[in-house]
Every structure is written in structure tokens, then in C-alpha cells.
């Protein structure tokens, strides 16, 4: 197949049954012998491998069509069956029809009138829906079955039973049951008239029901069941061939027996055997009969098994295929490459190619690549000449000649080089971010390298994960990848309208330490950091001298906040509460102190400067909405967001490498008074539990009051669990206080980098209650969990409360309980993944080809309307702010920091301009300008007042006034801002 081959349209596909005549007509050979090859290894004529069924040997011409292997698609043969046999798949349909027709005259057992009515219904339905109505056919079967006497010949109908899979019985109350042979069924079905068949939903032209009873069996061509020659020279036949051998053998024996006039019983037995073989030939998993087996005991893989299920033809060969131009390798991290990039091993780059058209502009490069050949890196593997002949550079003796031959119009399949776009994927591909486009970076080594921040969307880690890489081959595919699939286009997730990328783990720890109050850097370190963060690349005019150090004496020191601020765009404004926030405003009478927060938990970024607050997971982490990253992307686009992420992670990596971040056993070692306190808390809880248990035994309702809707036993469990949970919490708190805020493990948990307080508590204070199915452990022996305990011991220790910490070490029973709880977790995840995977499959299959049309409706592939307006509001969640189309808080904050004079200028300019501006101003923008206008009016009055004062105020006063008026800094990073200068000029004409 060539790229230039003509496209043809499929107008229609017709499905139907093959009639015996048709089978004979399309048959190339009648198969008589059950054998395949003779001693010389030649196919036996009229055997299952008859050469007329198509060639399999290369170089040999087909006896039927005269083509070589590559062009011969194989030809069917046939077997004449000695006795008719029913097709398993249609047994149910046959039963339904037999039940609704007269055994004598084979007419549908409904009156003409009824038939006419149903026919009319059917026609009406066809007019609207362009297909038959299955509901009506159902009614036909239902009604016809009820009639016991034929309205045409007065024949009596008997009850017909199907004994699975293929045996039919006719039952008469007095006489018992009698088998209906396939011959009889065939006769009855043959007698049916076309109009009756039509009412039953059967097309008399394409699928007369009698054709499901085989008198002739088609034999598939040899290429559909190829035999394999093993290394030892032994031929191994396909499962289908094996099955067909059985069918032919039994068929022959049956015929011989019938011809010889064998007793009825023997013939019947052989007939049944033939039916069995043909049944299993079609489906080897029919219930009610044992599956046919190979000599080794393995069940045969026959026709149905070839198509069905995950490993079947449809799901594994048609819906999904193995592809060329792909690679797979282990992944490993590299924080120095961009999130848009992927490191590709040289070995892989030399195999994967991109077809490049040679033109006047790239011919020199292409020549060099051809000269380099397939084994030197930026080389080429193939050349396609003007006449579409392909040259394999591996077998070219002198590549110089080929390189000189190159001219525009040639295509060079060149190696992957830096900057090529490839698709990168990690299974399971659960959402669209599982496949994204990356730019290639050729690297030494044998693993794919990727930036750490793209781990969350792929759900990847580096414990041996492997990922796949695909190379788009056409210009269209590459463009599409560039515009739609690049990682930077997926920073904002369509799931929750926030960034799915962001700092993870060490980056969070790092940014937390970096931007906390006491981090200070001297000029040298600061410059190094700025260099790592690419500040000078991003902003070539940047000069550290312009920034006023937060401490000037004795040496200038810059705060981490200042350094980190250099990464932000100048107009970034943000207010977020960090994870450290104590939620003062939720407490009664409490109020958020905002910028003056004692724990530095209120992050304020004003005109691109981080003034207060410590950055942590909430403002910098992955999957956090309203984070710095989201705000940058909303205002400056994906590319700026990507740069910020790249630069920030690089800077933070340097920070954490200088500072260090580690954790040891002694960090969670709680000793001295704190340890005693924890033990006391635990002992108290133990005593309290014992008191409750005692009350339970004595049925003392004053101590243990029965909870509503629960039994005494349940109440006890509830109370004990509560007491123990409370104790664990207290112990945890004591331990946390003892460890303090300086410990690295605490920094990690509190900043949200990794782990939580509970983990720390389990390490340092107490592991706590182990649970199975949400209850304390109560399984094991009769009335006790382990032989260490007395029967009916309900004490915390006997029911899975582990009162030691990991640091201290668990006692044997505690260790065992912990393992029990841990196992439950493992089982849960295993079950969850399989069930949710199946759910996902069903959901995707149901939703996959729905499309939002240009009129905003959601439609399926038939263009039926599924939803009249996408999402009821036509909003794309990826571009929302956490699901909201407009984030008012952010808009207001932005409006507050706007420079009124600048806007006034702009409005003036705008007014002067002729009305060439397009009308599609966004609603949001209009809204904003409205707000601005109002504020503008206010500021205008103020301006008049100030300008009326005659004396010129001092510079400091002016600056203060400017800041007050516009909310912008007059001096920013040590420089008088342009905005201020303009403002001054306009106001005072200075």
C-alpha cells in the first residue's frame, strides 16, 4: 500500500448467513480426507491443507487464483456433511421460531389480521428510525407462542424445549418428550414462507433461518490457520486445523456407517459426536459440554475464542495495534531539562527516524546526515528517491555518492535530533495527560530522562517505571502535537481548572525553607541563585544592584523571598493562605490578621514581589488551584508558566542542595519527660478502656450508655475506639511538640512536601489502632485474635492496639496486627484498581465519540443530541478558575493594583483610534473596564484637588502620594518606576 493509493468509500456493509449453495459456490475444494501432509511433507489433495485453499509457501503460485503468497488471500473449501447439524450460536433463535410456527404447515401462528397490524407498526417505525424495531419482533414471538392451534391448518403445536446447547425436544403431556432431529427442524424451517420470516425480523433474502442448520460446512483457507514449523523440523498444526480433522473424521465414519446400514443407535451416537465437534469448532466455551482439548490437555482456541475478549481479534488487533516508530525504556529523572523535554538515549535516536523532505534550505544538513549514515548519530537510515525507490543506507558501500545524488524532492529518513517533537506515554493511559508531546534531547545513557514536575500527570516515579515514546511521521501530526499535546498546554488540568503540574516533594521543602523568614543570602550566593533560576535569560536588563537588600549592614544580605520574587512576572498579584494557616477566622471572635500573621502564613505577592508569607504546597504544589503557577498562566500564557516552573525548580534544587534535607532515626526519638507523658496518656486510655469493658460485662449503663441504634457490644467498640483514637492524638501532639518545628521531617510534613503528622506520630509516639474492615481486629481463633491472649479479651492490646512507636519497635503481637492491617490495605488497592479499570472502560466506550458541535450541542456519532448545551453553560473546565468561569476575588485584586492614569491614557488613545477594533471584546474585559471607570471617576476628582495645590511637594511626599493613589510601588527593586515617572510628568509636568 502506498501513500498515493486511491481512497475508496465503503457505501454499505451487508451481514447475512451463507446458504449451502453459496458455500459450495465459493468453495475451491471439497475436503474429504482428514489428513494434512504425506510423508514427504506435501499437502494431500482433498486434505485439509489442499493447495487449492491458497498458497503459504513463498515463490509458489496459488492453484486457484495464480497469485503469489503476498497477493493470494486464500480460498474456502467445504465439507459435505453426512447429516445436518445445528449452529450453536443460533440455537436460541431456532427455538424461538420453532415455538411460533406450526409443526405441520410451518406458518406463523398468528391470524392474518394480527400479522397485518404488526407489519404496519414495523413500517411506521422504519420510517422514523430507518431500522427494524426489535420490540415488535419480541411481541410477535410472545403472541405466536401462545397460540396452540394453527389458524391455517388446525395443526396442534406441542411444547418445545431446548436442552442446551443444541438438542431440541417436543413434549406432549401424555406421551412424554421426543427429540426433534436437525433433519426435522430443517424441514420445518424450509417450509416457512418469506412474509412470515419478515415479520419475525429475519431477512428471507440474506439470512433464511434454515441456513443455520449446516448440510455443508465451509473450510477456512490455510492462511487463516497456518501451521508452524518448529526448529526441530516438526510441523505443528493450528487449533482450527485440529478441530477440522476431528470433524472430517467423524463425518467420514458417520457416512460409512449410514451407507453400511449400521444400527440406528450407532448412527445417532456418531451424529451427536459430529454435532459436538462442530459446536466446539465454533465455540469451545459453550456451557453444558466439556471443552475440546489438545493432546496436552490445553483447551483448543477455536473461532469464538479467536475473536472474543481482551486477547481477541477485536480488542487486541483491531481496536489496538502494535506500531512502528516507537520506543520503550526505563525512565529516570533529570531536573535540568525543561518540562517540555524528554531525554532520549542516543541508541534509540539512531533507530527512530523522521522523514524529511529535502529542499534548497536543508540540503547541506541532509547531505551531512546521509554521509554520517545509520551508525553515527545525527545520521540517516533511509533515503526515498524522487521515483519513490527506497535506499537502505546500511547496505550502501559509498555514502558519498548517495549524498551527492541528493536533490530537492528526495526524502531522507533522518535520525531523531534535539528539538524534534515526540509523544510520550505511560500506562495506564487514564486521562489525556497520559500522552503528551515532548521535545527531544539526545543524551548519553540508556534511559528516558524526564523533568520531575511532569511526574504527577503521568503518575510516574523512578522505581523502575517504563514509558513509551512515539514519533509522529507527518507534518500534520507534528503540528497537532505542537499545538495541542505539548506538556505546557496541559499544565492546567481540565479536571479541576487548576495546574496539575507544580512543585513536588523536595521542591516544596526547598521553597518552604527558602522563603521562610530567616533565610538570607549574601551577594555572591544570590547571584548564583539568580543564575540557576535563569533570571538573566528571562530578563536581560536585570541588575541586582537595583534591588535593595533586606539587610544592608554589615554586609548586604538578600532574603529568600526577594530572590524568589525575581522569578515572577512584574505584575503578579496574589493572596493565598499557606498550609501553616491556623484558620483564625473560623474560630469565634477570631479574625485573620492577613499580612501581619505571626506564623507568616498569609502569602502576599504584590506587583511581582513576595512581601509576606512562606511559600509552601498551597501556593506552589502540584494539583493546587489558585497557586502562583495558575495565576501566571492565566495572565501570561502557558509558555511563561512553563518558564517559571523550569526556572523555579532549578533554583530551588540548588537551594535544597546547599541547605540539605535529611531525616534520621534520632529525629523521631522521643525521650525523657515527653516519653513518660506519652506512656501516661496511653496507660490512662488503657485504664479507661478497661473501665468501659468492665461496665459492658456488668451491663452498667451509668458508665456505658447505649448509643442510639446500636447494640451494647457495638457501643463498647465505638467508645473504646474513640478513647484510643483520642489517646493516639494526644501522644502525637506530645511527640510533635518534643520534636519541634526545626526538624527536617517536620518541615517536610508541614510544608506538604511528603508525609503527614500521622506518619510522624506513628514513628515517634504510637502506631495506634489497627483495623480490618473499619473495626478493631476480631478475627483469628475462637473469641480471641492470637493465642497470646485470653478468650474474650476485649482489651486494647488484645484487639490490635499497637502501643509502641516504629522507632521504639513493635512487640510480636503488635507486629502481627500491623501486618494484618497492612495486608488489608494491599488487597483493597488491588481490588480497587481492577474494578475502577473496568468502570473506566465502560465509561470511555460509552462516551468516546461524543463531540461538541459548533452550535454548542453535544452529539454522538449518529448526530443524536446528547446535551443541548455542553455542560449546561458551554464552559470549558480547563479554562475556568476551579470550576468558576470568573474568579471575582482575583479580578478585584487585579483592579486594585491597576494604574489609573495608565488606563486613562489608554482610553484616550483608544478613543482617538478609528473604530477598527473587532467587536468580539470579551465579556470579562468589559466588566473590568466598567469597574475601572467607576474608580477612574473617583481618582479624577482626587487629581483635580491635588493639582490645584500650588507648591510642588517633595519627592518623598510625591512617591507616597503615588503609592496611595495607584496602589503601585513608586520605587521597585531600588529603581524609580516608569509608571511613577509618567504619573509625575502628567500631574506636575516635571
Amino acid at each position: 500500500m502506498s501513500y498515493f493509493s486511491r481512497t475508496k468509500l465503503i457505501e454499505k456493509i451487508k451481514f447475512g448467513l451463507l446458504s449451502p449453495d453459496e458455500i459450495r459456490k465459493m468453495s475451491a475444494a471439497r475436503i474429504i480426507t482428514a489428513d494434512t501432509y504425506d510423508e514427504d511433507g506435501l499437502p494431500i489433495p482433498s486434505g485439509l491443507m489442499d493447495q487449492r485453499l491458497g498458497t503459504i509457501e513463498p515463490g509458489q503460485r496459488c492453484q486457484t487464483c495464480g497469485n503469489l503468497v503476498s497477493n493470494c488471500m486464500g480460498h474456502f473449501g467445504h465439507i459435505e456433511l453426512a447429516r445436518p447439524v445445528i449452529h450453536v450460536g443460533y440455537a436460541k433463535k431456532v427455538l424461538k421460531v420453532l415455538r411460533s410456527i406450526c409443526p405441520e404447515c410451518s406458518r406463523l401462528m398468528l391470524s392474518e389480521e394480527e400479522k397485518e397490524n404488526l407489519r404496519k407498526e414495523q413500517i411506521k417505525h422504519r420510517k422514523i428510525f430507518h431500522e427494524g424495531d426489535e420490540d415488535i419482533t419480541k411481541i410477535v414471538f410472545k403472541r405466536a407462542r401462545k397460540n396452540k392451534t394453527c389458524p391455517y391448518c388446525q395443526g396442534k403445536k406441542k411444547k418445545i424445549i431446548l436442552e442446551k446447547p443444541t438438542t431440541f425436544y417436543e413434549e406432549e403431556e401424555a406421551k412424554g418428550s421426543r427429540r426433534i432431529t436437525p433433519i426435522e427442524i430443517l424441514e420445518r424451517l424450509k417450509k416457512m414462507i418469506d412474509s412470515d420470516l419478515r415479520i419475525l425480523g429475519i431477512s428471507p433474502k440474506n439470512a433464511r433461518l434454515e441456513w443455520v442448520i449446516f448440510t455443508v460446512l465451509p473450510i477456512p483457507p490455510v492462511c487463516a490457520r497456518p501451521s508452524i514449523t518448529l526448529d526441530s523440523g516438526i510441523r505443528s498444526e493450528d487449533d482450527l486445523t485440529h478441530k477440522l480433522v476431528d470433524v472430517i473424521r467423524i463425518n467420514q465414519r458417520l457416512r460409512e456407517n449410514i451407507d453400511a446400514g449400521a444400527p440406528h443407535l450407532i448412527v445417532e451416537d456418531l451424529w451427536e459426536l459430529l454435532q459436538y465437534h462442530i459446536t466446539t469448532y465454533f465455540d469451545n466455551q459453550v456451557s453444558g459440554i466439556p471443552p475440546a482439548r489438545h493432546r496436552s490437555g490445553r483447551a483448543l482456541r477455536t473461532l469464538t475464542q479467536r475473536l472474543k475478549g481482551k486477547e481477541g481479534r477485536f480488542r487486541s488487533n483491531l481496536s489496538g495495534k502494535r506500531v512502528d516508530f516507537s520506543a520503550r525504556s526505563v525512565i529516570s529523572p533529570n531536573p535540568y531539562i525543561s518540562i517540555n523535554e524528554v531525554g532520549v538515549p542516543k541508541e534509540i535516536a539512531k533507530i527512530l527516524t523522521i522523514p524529511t523532505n529535502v529542499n534548497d534550505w536543508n540540503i547541506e544538513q541532509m547531505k551531512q546526515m546521509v554521509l554520517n549514515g545509520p551508525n553515527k548519530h545525527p545520521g540517516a537510515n533511509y533515503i526515498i528517491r524522487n521515483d519513490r525507490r527506497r535506499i537502505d543506507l546500511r547496505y550502501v558501500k559509498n555514502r558519498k555518492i548517495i549524498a551527492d545524488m541528493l536533490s530537492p524532492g528526495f526524502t531522507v529518513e533522518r535520525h531523531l535530533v534535539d528539538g524534534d517533537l515526540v509523544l510520550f506515554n505511560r500506562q495506564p493511559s487514564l486521562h489525556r495527560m497520559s500522552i503528551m508531546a515532548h521535545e527531544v534531547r539526545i543524551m548519553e545513557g540508556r534511559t528516558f530522562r524526564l523533568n520531575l514536575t511532569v511526574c504527577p500527570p503521568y503518575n510516574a516515579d523512578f522505581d523502575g517505571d517504563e514509558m513509551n515514546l512515539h514519533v509522529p511521521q507527518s507534518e500534520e501530526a507534528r503540528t497537532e502535537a505542537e499545538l495541542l499535546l505539548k506538556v505546557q498546554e496541559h499544565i492546567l488540568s481540565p479536571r479541576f481548572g487548576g495546574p496539575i503540574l507544580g512543585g513536588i516533594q523536595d521542591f516544596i521543602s526547598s521553597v518552604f525553607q527558602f522563603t521562610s523568614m530567616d533565610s538570607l543570602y549574601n551577594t555572591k550566593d544570590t547571584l548564583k541563585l539568580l543564575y540557576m533560576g535563569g533570571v538573566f535569560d528571562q530578563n536581560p536588563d536585570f541588575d541586582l544592584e537595583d534591588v535593595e537588600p533586606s539587610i544592608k549592614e554589615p554586609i548586604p544580605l538578600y532574603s529568600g523571598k526577594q530572590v524568589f520574587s525575581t522569578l515572577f512576572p512584574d505584575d503578579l498579584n496574589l493572596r493565598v493562605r499557606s498550609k501553616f494557616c491556623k484558620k483564625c477566622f473560623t474560630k469565634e471572635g477570631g479574625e485573620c490578621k492577613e499580612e501581619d500573621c505571626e506564623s507568616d502564613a498569609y502569602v502576599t505577592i504584590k506587583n511581582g514581589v513576595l512581601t509576606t508569607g512562606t511559600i509552601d504546597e498551597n501556593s506552589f504544589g502540584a494539583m493546587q488551584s489558585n497557586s502562583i503557577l495558575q495565576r501566571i498562566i492565566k495572565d501570561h500564557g502557558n509558555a511563561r508558566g512553563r518558564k517559571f516552573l523550569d526556572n523555579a525548580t532549578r533554583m530551588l534544587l540548588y537551594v535544597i542542595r546547599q541547605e540539605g534535607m535529611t531525616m534520621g532515626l534520632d529525629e523521631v526519638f522521643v525521650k525523657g519527660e515527653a516519653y513518660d507523658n506519652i506512656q501516661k496518656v496511653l496507660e490512662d486510655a488503657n485504664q479507661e478502656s478497661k473501665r468501659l469493658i468492665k461496665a459492658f460485662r456488668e451491663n452498667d449503663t451509668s458508665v456505658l450508655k447505649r448509643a442510639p441504634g446500636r447494640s451494647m457490644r457495638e457501643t463498647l467498640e465505638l467508645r473504646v475506639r474513640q478513647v484510643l483514637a483520642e489517646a493516639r492524638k494526644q501522644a502525637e501532639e506530645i511527640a510533635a511538640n518534643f520534636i519541634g518545628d526545626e526538624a527536617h521531617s517536620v518541615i517536610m510534613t508541614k510544608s506538604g512536601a511528603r508525609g503527614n503528622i500521622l506518619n510522624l506520630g506513628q514513628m515517634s509516639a504510637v502506631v495506634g489502632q489497627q483495623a480490618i474492615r473499619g473495626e478493631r481486629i476480631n478475627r483469628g481463633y475462637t473469641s480471641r485474635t492470637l493465642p497470646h491472649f485470653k478468650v474474650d479479651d476485649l482489651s486494647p492490646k488484645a484487639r490490635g492496639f499497637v502501643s509502641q512507636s516504629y522507632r521504639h519497635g513493635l512487640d510480636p503481637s503488635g507486629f502481627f496486627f500491623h501486618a494484618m492491617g497492612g495486608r488489608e490495605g494491599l488487597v483493597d488497592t488491588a481490588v480497587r484498581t481492577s474494578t475502577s479499570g473496568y468502570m473506566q472502560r465502560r465509561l470511555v466506550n460509552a462516551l468516546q465519540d461524543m463531540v461538541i458541535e459548533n452550535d454548542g450541542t453535544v452529539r454522538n456519532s449518529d448526530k443524536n443530541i446528547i446535551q443541548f448545551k455542553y455542560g449546561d453553560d458551554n464552559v470549558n473546565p480547563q479554562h475556568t478558575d476551579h470550576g468558576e468561569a470568573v474568579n471575582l476575588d482575583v479580578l478585584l485584586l487585579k483592579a486594585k493594583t491597576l494604574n489609573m492614569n495608565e488606563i486613562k491614557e489608554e482610553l484616550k488613545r483608544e478613543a482617538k483610534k478609528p473604530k477598527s477594533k473587532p467587536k468580539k471584546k470579551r465579556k470579562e474585559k468589559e466588566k473590568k473596564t466598567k469597574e475601572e471607570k467607576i474608580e477612574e471617576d473617583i481618582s479624577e476628582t482626587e487629581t483635580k484637588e491635588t493639582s490645584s495645590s500650588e507648591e510642588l511637594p517633595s519627592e518623598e511626599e510625591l512617591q507616597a502620594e503615588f503609592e496611595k493613589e495607584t496602589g503601585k510601588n513608586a520605587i521597585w527593586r531600588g529603581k524609580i518606576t516608569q509608571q511613577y515617572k509618567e504619573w509625575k510628568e502628567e500631574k506636575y509636568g516635571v
Partner: protein
Amino acid sequence: MTKKKKIDVLLHKYVPKHVLLTKAEAEELLETYKIRYTDLPQMFEKDPVAIAIGAKEGDVVKIIRDSETTVSQINYYRYVKKEKV
């Protein structure tokens, strides 16, 4: 057998407002979306609401309801179909 109490389903708080469209309105709807009757979502003739508002096979019903997550007053349309069996 006790007589079944008749309930007006239209008064139930979980039943949104249903409006039976006239032929002309229905045609107009089909024209705006450039669709055929069968491209609309369907409801059965035996649907309690269809009975209550007297919708017969071939009619188009407009349903007006508020969305929990987004805007209020969204129109949905249903093609009334006869239920078989």
C-alpha cells in the same frame, strides 16, 4: 384491593416543569438544531409526566429545569415514543 391514591406528579418538587410543544414550535426547534425528530433524546408515552401533560407519540416535550452546578432555566427537549412490550 385498596384504591390507589392519585398523585399529581407535576406537583412533586423533583419533577421539573414540562411543556408540550406545538407542532410549529417543534418544527422550529428541529430547524434551529438542524435535526430530525429521532436525533432528540427520547421519553416514553407511558412516562408518568407524559401521561400527566397528555403527550402522545410524535410530540416533543420541553423540560425546563435548573442546573445544580451552572445556570438556572435550561431547556431540554424530549421526543415522545411509544413504549413496547
